[in-house]
Each structure stands twice: as structure tokens, then as C-alpha cells.
């Protein structure tokens, strides 16, 4: 496809004056030189001044030199543990901190401090990846806002656990005779250790009610399964077995249920095989989600109409119903139905609605297709997110009525995510929190039995039925916390003191293991997972689709609607104190550090709103003020707000993570007996007098200037010619330099498959943690000073119109400007809508955009332009093909950044780790523990960029040399490639003919970005193939 059809943001598409002028410069803000020079005195220096400064300088140097060199200490162990070798990392199998339901990972530990998470490649069922939030949650261990130990009424006063337990036990024992109950509010933690502890606790306190609580409800699915198959469960979905995937608003790659696993499974069928087969993905949704951005066919619909669409699909598939259902534009439901039928039981239909009837219809459709037993497993089902909000609202009502005497919250922060909670909690006299970090719920707690951080404690979780994931301590407790199971047992009368330096939690975990799982405990801990699966059975159905269709056809769509969604980086907001997640740009909108009201272009034009205008949105449940963000691809008359923002953290919480965005949880509509994330009939009004809000957005930073950077083709074209989409004529290369022979030794290279890459941004966070990349904060991102070594470029392009679309919006004034199936260039769309006289439909085209994601980092060009312009040789080339950056030589001219065609070099404007202005954990002693000791912490004034994880290369080479053997380059990989849940990034040695990279380099889809420049990059991309039937993507050249 021709390159000039891509655009990264609306500013670029419109070519607004501001955008053009700011992009002409390397830096968005000029240096304040003029200001300095406009001051007349400062420009003239006379001889006397010169002598004064010279004399002062000499004196100052002499004085400064009189400092004593600081004495550095080297403190060895008194008794060194056998397995610890200072300077060599240890890896412990554990469970991801941000996934409460459990997700296997490895924790890299250096000298007793966890410094990075890595995927547990052995746990293949979960896929060998990890997401951005998962990586980012490591910082929660080193958070200065962590609670330091047991507290009563907000005070610590050296509470020792024995006196604390006495007080709590006496309070709890009082409830036994009061006739009132104890509530345990339990978050989505699937820990079987906690299960057992709660059981023992309840046997003493028989007035205990355990209430499951999740901020995000999936009760639609659990209730539907209860009704359909008699089990209130969320099934396990196997996207790897699906040839056709149809999703109705389920963001399964971003936020829905278990996205990391879904990523790996999904990507397995996304790369076209040699015989030209790949899976087909239809996405019907309102907002532009990460999943939607990867769909082959994405249809913007209103989520209030999702029921009608399901009915239509049911009917098309041959379901027995008189109802027509609904089809918006084109024949997408029909087309999907045809493909679903053809795929039979190798298909999957999922839906993000939380309405029970919708999910029952989805079940009926999947049953008709025969997906139970292939793509859907209800036997070894998912165990997380099982909470039903009705249980919690019953608790709220009872608490308000004074039926509870005590409440214990475990892994839950209900006061933040449920606006009824505060009032209900105030009615309960004893409020015990077991949080790790100060949050909304701990503020009002009477007793805080501070839990151990998951990285400090033992645990066994069961994310899927029969699949156990183990946690083990990777650091000795940083503060005086105690395992929540030990706390519960202590209040139930067990002695939980540590015996002979063996913690009670360890013994108890081992006991639970022996009781429930059995086998070799040490082996289980070593590998991190144990499977005890049952043979899958196909459930029998109680309810037919026809009756559900009757019910669904009564559901009316609404005029306007608000969709509350989760952002990929932040999710439900529980780990809102992890700055890496906030700094990670949203994969689609590329906004950092904020939530916003996203709206479609037609709506924005109709209401005369622009990105950054602050509006008040009102629903039945309330209203909030937020700035607007215009999102291409979003369906007309739908609005989106991300949950998980607007934390009201206690006042003494230190760092810049307070006051980010607004809390949208109060807008969740619970009037119909379920948590509905789609509110109908909302109104929007511009807030008078509000200042235009500036987002920290990386979207149009580094523009493409219409170059041929991203390449794509349809599957049809690919079948005809595997080289489709790539340049027809390769430019003739003439080099200014003598070519270096890289065939000796190693030649490091990288291949990135644009078909597998979903843009999930896990690599960005993994890279940042591995390479000590500083967090700069919203204000610096606004100035385009984000430091990420790796960014993911997201390109939009317009879809080619269908016949019906042509009638709708391209034909204006009786003149048809675009042929059906013709490629929609930016210019053609512009021309079409500028000629449109009908304001209703003029901007509808912005709903139909396609998205391509492209990770971009230093390309390690063999003829690197940055190297030739560096005046001090701070950036040079290695014999192994690496573009080396030597920080201590760099004097910060930024010439290299200017001369880089890929715009991947970053300048350190500040000493981020020693500057109080950047209070993102890196500037305090606790946060510094996360720093990778093998990588230099850069000071201000130097350039930096991707090094292809040279520290890992060197380490792997050294291991081979020490072992006296040849190197197998597939034995290690870079931080980005390692974490990629869809295996889109492959790194290796081109000179090793057996390596994966050497094979990929011969792939027909391969191309180098901007290869016509002759810079010979070492990073290669593979053309994106879309599973669509268009044949119009001819190269423009």
C-alpha cells in the first residue's frame, strides 16, 4: 500500500499549522536563547568580566578540589548463602503481581533485590509473555508509600504483632455474641492458601460472610453460564484453535479476562502459513480498542445495539428466530456468519457486554457452531473474576442496616471502585484492612494488618481449574508486614510466630500443598506451575437460542451512550501507583498519564469540540468533567471513559501519582441488577471558561512525512505473491563508505513481524526496566521528551468503501469521487468530506479506519547517519553490527538525534534519578533498588538509545566463553523480544545459520524501513498481511 495513505494523528492528517511548524524542528520547544540574548548586558563581556570569571573559576576549582574523595565501603556477607554469587542474577519462579488470579513469571534477583520480571517460558499454557502492567507492578515493591507494619487507627506506634493480634481478636470475639456478622471482602485472588485460611477463620467465627469483590464485573458471563450449563463460571477460551474470531466489544487482547494468554494464542494463527492460511478476526465495537485495531474487519457499532447484532448473527447462522436483529452498514454480520459456518468448531464468538442475556446468546451461538470442547473449555475453566456484584450490593445494604460488626478487606479496595462503599463501611465499627500500600480503604480502616508484598510471600494460586501457580519470596520483607493467611489464622487462635527462622506462611503453604495438590513441593516451587487437569467434557445446554432472541429483540438501543472501559496499561486501577504503567502510552490513543472522554470525529465536529476541550458528561448515575480526545475509528454518538483513574490517595502519599484523571467508577450503571458499563442517553456540554487541556500524548511525536515506512497487503495478494506490499523496484544502492565484512564473528539483528505485533506495548515497559530508562512524567511528555528507547508507532489509514458507504458519504452533489474498492487515500477522503454539504454524514469516514502498529527502536544501521555527525565519536559502530552509544563521551550536541532518519535517539534533559521534580520512585533510596546494576544510569546532557540489550549479549558471550563452547544465539534474547506475548520480535545472530533470525531474514515478507536511504538497518520488518479480500493494494510506485 502506498505510504502516503498513513497518518499518525488528526493533526498530521489535517496538517494544522501548529503541527507543520512544530514538526519542522527537532525539538518541539526552542531553547530559551533569544530570551537570554535579548538582555543586552549579557551579550557583551568585557575584559574585566572575563578576568573576574576566569579568576573565580580557577579559585572555585581549587576549592572544590579540596574535597576528600568519598570513602566507599565493601560489605560482604557474614555468612554467605550457598546459592548466592554476588554479581550473578538468580531467577525465581513466581506469580505476576498485577494479575491477582495468578500468572506464572520468573523474577530476576540481583544481590537479594528483585530487579525485573521475565516470562516463565516453561508455563506454555499461559503463553510465554508478560504485559506492560505486569512489568510495571515491580515498582509496587519499592513504593515508599507502602504500609510499614501493623497499625491501629492510622498510627503505628511500634505496634508489635502480638499486642495487635490481641486487640483484633478481642474485637472479633465480641462480634460472636453481638448477633452481628463479620464480612470478609475478598478481591480476585484465587489463592488456595487464602481459601483454607478463610475456612479455618470461619470455623471459629461462624458469623463470617465471605463476599467476593472485583472492581470489574464479569457477572454477565458467570450468570449466563449458570443459566445455560448450570455452572457459574468463566470458561477457558482457546484462541489458538480458532480460525474465525468474532468479537462484540470484547477487548480480549487488551483488557478482557486474561489478555496475555489470549495474545499468545491469538497470534499463533495470525502469521500466514506457507499455504496462505491465517485466522480471520471480526470486531464489532464502539471504541477503538487494542483488539479492534488488530482486527481484519472492524465494524463500528453502538454497544447498546449489541443485542440486536447478536440476534442478527444468530439468525444468519440458521438460528430459529423470527426476529431480524440488526445490521449497521455493509453486510458484515452476513459475511461473518458465512465464515463462522465454514470454520465450524474452529471458531469463537466472544462478547464484552455484561448483560446476562447477551452472554447467553453468545453461548447459544458458540454451541451451534460446536465450539464447546474446542475453543471453549468449561471443565478446566478460568477461576478469576468470579465475583457477582449482587453479593456485594447485598453486603452494602446489610451493612447500612447495621448487620455487620466487622469487615476485613483482602486484596480489595472497594472504597475507591464502588461509591456505595464509603457510607456502608462507616456503619461498621471494626474495619480491618490487609492492604500493602496506603489506599482509599486503608484511610478509614480501624486496624491495618499489613500484608506482605506478593514478592515477599508464599502463595499457591489457581487461575484455571486444575492449573496451580506458585509464588515464593524473592526478597526478605522490606517492611514489617505479615502474610494475610497468617493474620487470619492468628485471629482464629493459631500460633503463627516464626519457628527457627521458618515462617509460618511457608509451613502453612506447604501444608495446603500437601492436602490439596500433593507431590514434590520443592519441584513445584522451582518450576512455578503444576497441572492437575480433568478431561474436558462438553456441557449440555438448558436453554435454546430462540427464547433468548425473543428477549434480546426487545432491547432498545439508545441515542447516545457512554462506554466505560479499561486502559491496557492501567486496567482496573489497582496498581495505579506504578509510574511505568502511566508513562506507557495507550496502544491506540498514545495518551500517557490521563484518562479522557474519547469521542468520534463526526460528533466532535457536530458539537464543535476539539481535542483538549473540557466537557461535562452527564449520565443517569452522575457526571464528571473531562477533556475530550477525538479518536478515529470510534462509532458515532458513543463516548468512552477509562476506569482506574482519579485515585483519592491519602494526603501523606508521596509521589506524583495523585490527581491523575477522574474516577469513572461512580458512572457504572447498576440499576438493572448488574454492573452495566454502557450507559445510555448521556449529555455533553462544554465547560464554559475551562482552559484547553494539553495531553501528554506521544501520538504525532516523530512524524513520518509521507515516507514508505509501513507496508501491508491483503491475504489474497499475499497468496498470489508473497512479496506483495513490498517495493517492486529496490533502489540501487551506492555507498559512500567501504563496506565492512560482517560475516566474521557475530552479526546481531532483529526481525519484527507486523502481523504478530498487536501494539500491546509490553516491550516498552520491559525495555525501560531492563535499561534503567527514566520516567519523565506528563509535563515532559508534553514537551516530547519521553525517554522510551522503544516506541510503538500507530498508523491509521482509511478503509476502502463498500458500495453502500459510497452512497452514504462519498457521493456528494451527484458526483461520485471514489470508485468502489478503490484505495482511500488521505487526499480523497479530505476531498470527499470537504465537498459534503450534509453535515450529518460529512465526517462519518473517520469511523472506518484501519490501524497498523510498528515497534520502532534504534535500527543499528551499518551505515549509521548518527555516527558520521558526532563530533566526539561518542557513537560508533562495533564489528558485531551494533551502533554503540558511549555516554561518558557524549557532550550533548544532539547532532545524532537530528540526523537519525528513524528518530529513535533520546536526550537526557535532566538527571532524572537525582531530581526531586521527577518523583517517580527513582529519586528515592527505596525506588533505586530496582535499577539494573549492569546498565549505566545516564546523567543529564547525554544522548541515549536502544543498545539491542548489549549487556545481555556480552553476558551470553561470556557464558559461552567460560564454558568453552560455541555460542547458540537462540539461548538469550533482548528484553523486548523476551516479553512479547505474541512473539513478534525475534533477535539473534545472522551469522549463525541455524538461528531463527537467519531463517526470518530470508522470508519473502521482509523489508527494511527506509531502505532507500542506504543506511542498511539491522532491524527488519515483515509486511503486515490483512485477511481481507481486497486486491487494490498495488504499490504506488
Amino acid at each position, binding site marked *: 500500500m502506498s505510504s502516503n495513505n498513513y497518518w499518525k494523528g488528526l493533526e498530521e492528517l489535517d496538517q494544522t499549522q501548529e503541527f507543520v511548524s512544530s514538526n519542522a524542528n527537532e525539538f518541539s520547544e526552542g531553547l530559551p536563547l533569544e530570551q537570554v540574548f535579548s538582555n543586552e548586558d549579557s551579550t557583551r563581556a568585557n575584559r574585566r568580566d572575563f578576568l573576574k570569571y576566569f579568576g573565580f573559576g580557577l579559585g572555585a576549582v581549587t576549592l572544590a*578540589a579540596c574535597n576528600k574523595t568519598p570513602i566507599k565501603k565493601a560489605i560482604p*556477607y557474614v555468612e554467605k548463602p550457598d546459592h548466592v554469587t554476588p554479581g550473578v542474577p538468580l531467577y525465581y519462579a513466581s506469580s505476576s503481581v498485577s494479575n491477582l488470579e495468578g500468572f506464572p513469571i520468573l523474577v530476576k534477583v540481583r544481590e537479594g533485590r528483585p530487579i525485573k520480571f521475565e516470562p516463565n517460558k516453561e508455563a506454555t499454557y499461559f503463553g510465554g509473555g508478560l504485559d506492560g502492567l505486569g512489568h510495571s507492578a515491580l515498582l509496587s515493591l519499592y513504593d515508599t508509600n507502602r504500609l510499614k507494619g501493623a497499625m491501629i487507627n492510622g498510627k503505628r506506634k511500634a505496634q508489635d504483632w502480638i499486642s495487635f493480634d490481641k486487640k483484633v481478636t478481642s474485637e472479633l470475639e465480641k462480634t460472636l455474641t453481638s448477633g452481628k456478622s463479620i464480612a470478609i471482602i475478598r478481591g480476585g485472588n484465587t489463592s488456595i492458601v487464602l481459601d483454607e485460611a478463610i475456612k479455618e477463620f470461619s470455623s471459629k467465627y461462624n458469623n463470617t460472610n465471605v463476599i467476593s469483590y472485583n472492581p470489574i464485573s464479569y457477572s454477565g458471563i458467570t450468570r449466563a453460564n449458570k443459566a445455560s450449563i448450570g455452572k457459574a463460571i468463566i470458561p477457558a477460551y482457546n484462541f489458538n484453535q480458532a480460525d474465525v474470531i468474532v468479537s462484540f466489544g470484547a477487548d480480549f487482547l487488551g483488557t478482557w479476562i486474561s489478555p496475555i494468554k489470549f495474545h499468545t494464542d491469538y497470534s499463533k494463527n495470525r502469521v500466514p502459513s506457507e499455504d496462505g492460511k491465517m485466522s480471520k478476526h471480526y470486531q464489532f465495537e464502539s471504541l477503538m480498542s487494542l483488539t479492534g485495531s488488530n482486527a481484519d474487519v472492524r465494524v463500528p457499532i453502538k454497544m447498546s445495539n449489541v443485542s440486536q447484532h447478536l440476534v442478527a448473527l444468530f439468525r444468519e447462522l440458521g438460528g430459529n428466530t423470527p426476529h431480524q436483529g440488526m445490521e449497521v452498514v455493509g453486510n458484515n454480520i452476513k459475511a461473518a456468519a458465512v465464515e463462522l459456518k465454514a470454520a465450524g468448531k474452529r471458531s469463537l464468538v466472544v462478547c464484552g457486554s455484561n448483560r446476562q442475556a447477551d452472554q447467553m446468546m453468545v453461548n447459544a451461538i458458540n454451541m451451534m457452531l460446536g465450539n464447546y470442547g474446542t475453543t471453549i473449555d468449561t471443565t478446566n475453566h478460568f477461576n478469576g473474576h468470579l465475583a457477582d456484584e449482587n453479593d456485594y450490593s447485598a453486603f452494602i445494604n446489610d451493612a447500612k442496616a447495621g448487620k455487620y460488626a466487622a469487615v476485613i478487606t483482602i486484596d480489595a479496595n472497594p472504597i475507591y471502585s464502588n461509591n456505595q462503599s464509603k457510607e456502608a463501611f462507616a456503619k461498621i465499627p471494626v474495619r480491618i484492612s490487609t492492604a500493602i500500600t496506603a489506599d482509599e480503604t486503608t484511610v478509614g480502616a480501624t486496624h491495618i494488618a499489613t500484608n506482605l508484598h506478593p514478592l515477599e510471600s508464599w502463595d499457591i494460586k489457581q487461575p484455571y481449574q486444575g492449573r496451580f501457580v506458585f509464588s515464593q519470596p524473592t526478597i526478605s520483607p522490606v517492611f514489617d508486614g505479615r502474610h494475610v493467611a497468617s493474620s487470619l489464622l492468628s485471629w482464629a487462635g493459631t500460633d503463627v510466630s516464626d519457628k527457627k527462622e521458618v515462617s509460618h506462611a511457608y509451613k502453612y503453604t506447604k501444608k495446603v500443598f500437601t492436602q490439596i495438590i500433593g507431590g514434590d513441593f520443592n519441584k513445584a516451587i522451582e518450576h512455578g506451575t503444576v497441572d492437575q487437569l480433568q478431561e474436558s467434557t462438553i456441557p449440555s445446554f438448558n436453554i435454546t437460542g430462540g427464547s433468548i432472541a425473543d428477549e434480546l429483540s426487545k432491547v432498545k438501543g439508545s441515542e447516545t451512550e457512554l462506554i466505560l472501559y479499561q486502559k491496557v496499561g492501567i486496567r482496573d486501577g489497582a496498581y495505579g501507583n506504578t509510574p511505568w504503567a502511566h508513562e506507557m502510552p495507550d496502544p491506540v490513543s498514545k495518551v500517557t498519564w490521563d484518562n479522557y472522554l474519547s469521542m468520534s470525529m463526526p460528533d466532535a465536529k457536530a458539537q464543535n469540540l476539539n481535542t483538549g476541550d473540557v466537557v461535562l458528561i452527564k449520565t443517569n448515575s452522575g457526571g464528571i468533567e473531562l477533556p475530550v480526545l477525538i479518536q478515529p475509528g470510534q462509532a458515532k454518538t458513543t463516548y468512552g471513559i477509562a476506569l482506574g483513574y482519579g485515585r483519592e490517595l491519602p494526603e501523606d502519599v508521596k509521589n506524583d501519582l495523585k490527581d491523575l484523571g477522574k474516577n469513572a467508577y461512580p458512572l457504572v450503571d447498576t440499576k438493572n441488577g448488574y454492573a452495566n458499563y454502557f450507559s445510555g442517553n448521556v449529555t455533553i456540554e462544554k465547560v464554559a471558561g475551562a482552559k484547553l487541556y494539553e495531553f501528554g500524548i506521544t501520538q504525532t511525536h516523530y512524524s513520518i512525512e509521507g515516507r514508505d515506512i509501513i507496508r501491508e497487503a491483503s491475504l489474497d495478494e499475499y497468496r498470489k505473491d508473497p512479496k506483495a506490499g513490498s517495493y517492486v523496484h529496490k533502489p540501487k544502492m551506492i555507498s559512500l563508505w567501504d563496506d565492512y565484512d560482517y560475516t566474521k564473528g557475530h552479526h546481531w539483528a532483529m526481525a519484527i513481524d507486523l502481523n504478530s505485533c498487536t501494539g500491546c506495548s509490553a516491550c516498552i515497559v520491559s525495555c525501560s526496566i531492563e535499561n534503567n530508562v527514566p520516567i519523565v512524567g506528563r509535563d515532559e511528555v508534553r514537551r516530547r521528551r519521553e525517554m522510551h528507547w522503544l516506541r510503538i508507532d500507530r498508523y491509521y489509514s482509511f478503509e476502502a468503501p463498500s458500495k453502500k458507504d459510497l452512497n452514504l458519504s462519498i457521493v456528494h452533489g451527484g458526483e461520485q469521487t471514489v470508485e468502489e474498492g478503490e484505495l482511500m487515500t488521505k487526499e480523497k477522503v479530505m476531498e470527499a468530506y470537504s465537498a459534503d454539504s450534509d453535515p450529518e454524514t460529512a465526517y462519518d469516514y473517520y469511523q472506518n479506519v484501519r490501524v497498523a502498529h510498528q515497534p520502532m527502536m534504534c535500527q543499528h544501521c551499518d551505515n549509521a547517519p548518527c555516527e558520521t555527525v558526532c563530533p566526539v565519536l561518542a557513537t560508533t559502530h562495533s564489528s558485531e553490527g551494533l551502533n554503540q552509544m558511549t*555516554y561518558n563521551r557524549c557532550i550533548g550536541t544532539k547532532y545524532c538525534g537530528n540526523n537519525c532518519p528513524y528518530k529513535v535517539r533520546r536526550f537526557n534533559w535532566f538527571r532524572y534519578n537525582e531530581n526531586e521534580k521527577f518523583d517517580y520512585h527513582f529519586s528515592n533510596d527505596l525506588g533505586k533498588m530496582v535499577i539494573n546494576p549492569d546498565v549505566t544510569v545516564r546523567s543529564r546532557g547525554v544522548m541515549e538509545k536502544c543498545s539491542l540489550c548489549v549487556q545481555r549479549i556480552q553476558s551470553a558471550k561470556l557464558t559461552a566463553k567460560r564454558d568453552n563452547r560455541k555460542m547458540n544465539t537462540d539461548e538469550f534474547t533482548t528484553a523486548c523480544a523476551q516479553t512479547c506475548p505474541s512473539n513478534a520480535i525475534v533477535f539473534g545472530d545472522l551469522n549463525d545459520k541455524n538461528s531463527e533470525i537467519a531463517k526470518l531474514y530470508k522470508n519473502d515478507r521482509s523489508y527494511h524501513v527506509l531502505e532507500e536511504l542506504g543506511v542498511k538497518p539491522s532491524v527488519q520488518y515483515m509486511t503486515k498481511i490483512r485477511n481481507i479480500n481486497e486486491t487494490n493494494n498495488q504499490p504506488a510506485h
Partner: protein
Amino acid sequence: MNIPKTQIVLSTLFVLLSTTSYSNNNMSSFYSESTFLALIILSIVLIAISVLLYGIKRHLTVLNNEKNKQEAEPSLYERKFRPIIEAWNPTVATLIIAGAVMLFLGAFGYKFGMEEVGVQQGYAPTQPINFSHKIHAGQYEMDCKYCHSTVEKSKSASIPSLNTCMNCHKYVKASEKYNGKTSPEIQKIYNAIGYDGDNMEYIEGYEQKPIEWVRIHNLPDLSYFNHSQHVVVGKVECQTCHGPIQEMDKVYQFSNLQMGWCIDCHRERGIDSENNDYYEEAHKNMLAEGKDYITVAENGGLECSKCHY
């Protein structure tokens, strides 16, 4: 006239002595002691006294001359320096004097500046335990790797933990030198780890305190150095970089640890490509090119990102 002269000469000598003392490896360092400061203060006081005395003497002479109606004797400056300066071009003279002063200050600044950036060859701080490598590595010929056990596995050679010391010092107390009592230096180990030397047993529930050694070799954060690379792969002797460690009662920094020093070695030293399968290809290429050996530099050992990342 003789007294002030001697004073000046003496104080200058003091200053020179105190500044040069630092380059003497075996002299106790001024880092941990305030000797240097005391010497400076002393010399300033001495200079002040001599100036004062000279002034008084001159004043007395003038008074004496007035009393005796004698012609005033020209001052030292008038007699000695003025003719020289007058013989010269005054500009040249001023420049020379100013130059000398700047040279002095500059040398001063340079020396401390070097230390400030971490170049501290000869650094020999006093350690919490007077551990002698001369006795352990020299006299008893213990293998370096016995104590610095991670040198073949890790980037750091590591200072041994106390339980390594206790392997021998559980029994070895050097009491023969101290009238049957445990050597006070060895007692420091016992105090840290909690060992009762008299009854030869560990003390239950003792709060152990690690020994805080003063780090001698300080590479800056910007450079990566790996001991195992040099010791195992490069087969470099410890003494090549650390000097005659087996003769040192008190360890001092033998090499300057500057980049030029690293590079010099990388340029000259060969790779044992014959006996390491990792270098199989490099070895083949070497034979094809008819060379006897390849140096570290020829294998890319001078490239920036081999040490800086």
C-alpha cells in the same frame, strides 16, 4: 638576616613534603588522617610567624638606625629582588611570577581533580581489620581463589564472607604472639560473627555485624568490568593488575585503572583461541591469515560497548 631565610626555606620544605607524601605508596595515606591538614596549618602558622619576626626585626633595625643616625640599610627586596626585576623586563618578570603561582595552584587542582574522578593509584586506606596479604598469600601461599571464590564465576571477585575466614580461624588464633590470648585482629572476626574463641563455639542468638571494608578499587559506574572474563577466559594473573599482592602487608591500588591502561593491555595481549571452542571460527581465520595469535583488540576488544553500556 639568617633566621627569616631559614624559616622560609623550612616552611617551603614542609609544604613540598606534605604535597609529595601522597605519591609515596608506602606512606600512610592522608585520606583517613588529618596529617595533611595539620601540616598545611603548621606551615601557614610558621610562615606567619616568620613574616612577623622579619617585620619586627626590620622595624627594630630601622629604630636602631634612627637612634644611631645611621643610613637605613636597604631591605631584602631592595637588595636582592629589585636589581633582578629591574634587570629584566618588568612584564616578563610579572608573567613569570604569575605563571609560577598558577602552575602551583594548577598542579594542586589537577592532583585533587584526578582523585575526584576516581584516579587514585597508590590508595592504601586503613582497613577495619589489619589483614595482611603478605602473610596469607605470601607466607602461607594460599590460593587467591580460596577467599575470592567468585572470581571465576562473577563480575566481582568478592570479598570473602566471614564464614570463609572461620574455616581456618576457628582454630588459628595466633595466640603465640599475644601471650596465649587471641590476636586482637582475629578477635575482630569473632566479635563480628559471634564466636567464643576460648570455648571454641559459636554464641547462640548473637547479633552478627558485617565487617565494613574500605573499597580500594573503584571503577566508575560507566564502565563494566568482569573478573571471570579476565581470569577464566583471558587467563590473566591476579598480579597483572593488582601488583605484588603477596608482598603487601597493607593493600594499595597498584594500577591506575584508567582507560588507557586497559586499552594498552587489550592491544598487546593475545587470545587463547586455540583452546576455547568459542573462538573456533576466529582461530580458523587467524590461521588462514597466517598469524601466530590475535590480540584482544583484533577481536573487537577496543570497541566502546564491550565495556560501556
